[in-house]
């Protein structure tokens, strides 16, 4: 099951050229781009690991792609996303984020039913990948 999180996630995966153009757009807006990765695809897992510092003071998107390539080399089977941080006073948060790398096989999610008192049932989801292996070896 294909993970859909962040912007552009219902489109086919972006090519490097398209990623470059999106990064160019972000830099044009004055946003700082960061690269983050994780192997826990749960939708409520919002804090991913950062790959290096967010890239402030960048002028050209080629630098982003350079960093992204080295991240892909290190974590070829992880989810990787680009985040664009707007430091304007009053915003000061991530304003755009999209997935730029995903594992080859995405096993999807299992529906977990937890029975409570009476006849109540609580529902949750859990990735099959997360269940099968410890962190770092999931994909």
């Amino acid at each position: 099951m294909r993970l859909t999180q962040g912007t552009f996630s219902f489109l086919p995966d972006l090519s490097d050229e398209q990623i470059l153009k999106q990064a160019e757009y972000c830099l044009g807006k004055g946003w700082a781009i960061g690269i983050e990765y994780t192997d826990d695809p749960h939708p409520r897992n919002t804090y991913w690991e950062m790959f290096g510092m967010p890239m402030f003071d960048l002028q050209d998107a080629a630098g982003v792609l350079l960093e992204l390539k080295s991240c892909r080399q290190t974590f070829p089977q992880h989810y990787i996303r680009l985040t664009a941080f707007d430091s304007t006073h009053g915003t000061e948060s991530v304003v755009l984020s999209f997935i730029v790398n995903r594992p080859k096989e995405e096993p999807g999610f299992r529906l977990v039913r937890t029975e409570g008192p009476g006849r109540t049932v609580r529902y949750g989801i859990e990735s099959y990948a997360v269940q099968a292996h410890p962190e770092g070896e999931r994909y």
Partner: protein
Amino acid sequence: MEADTPRALFEASGVKAVLDQLDAELVGLAPVKGRIRDIAALLLIDRLRAQQGLQSQPPSLHMCFTGNPGTGKTTVALRMAEVLKQLGYVRKGHLVAVTRDDLVGQFIGHTAPKTKEVIKKAMGGVLFIDEAYYLYRPDNERDYGQESIEILLQVMENHRDDLVVILAGYKDRMDTFFSSNPGMASRIAHHLDFPDYREDELLQIAQLMLQRLNYRFDPAAQDAFARYLRLRREQPHFANARSVRNALDRIRLRHATRLFDAEHALTREQLTELQAEDVLASRVFAVADAQGAARRAA
């Protein structure tokens, strides 16, 4: 196809404006200007070739500027970024000027991220490494400079269309640097040597600088300054245009002090005109006189 003659394209691209400005604002430096012109021509012709569907591989434009202090290496590098931007060779046309401290780390594993950080910032523009020979310290084999050089080499080869690297430094020390890093020497296509300025060129530079600051020499001061330059050139630590700038700064100080004691209101004329006495108070004349006297006594 009248509009597509090289000359029309040259003028339309804004390159001509930048080169003309280069001519107007930089005195002398004929070999450097010639090379910049050649590069501009090549890039323009390449663009025409591309329009015709001919093979046009962007040339390698990594450069090395050598020359004595104050010959305009940094200034030209800044202009180079503009020229390359106009020609469409680099995308952003900014200049990132760094020295050894910005590239080389202080402990194992510190150098690579530091160098890469700088390279990422310079992407789309020009990376200017001043005093590049400091990167390589032959006397210390554990020096991290070598690691930085290796990363630079890799980027210079693989990201040729993303950034232009310009190394700068004194001639003799750059020569030793290249002889111990043959990989670096072979990846740099353009070696530009900045000649020392002649006396009349230095005078011209001084006048340009004064003009920009709304000052001028009166005729006597001009003669005195020409004499000052002749004497100063023979003394140690002469740094071409930089020495001229420093001398002018000191002359302005003396000019200000002289006016400060005036009892009457100052005219515009007085505020702009530097007189011979401001120049002649320089230490350089005293030293030269002492030397002359010593020679006569001996």
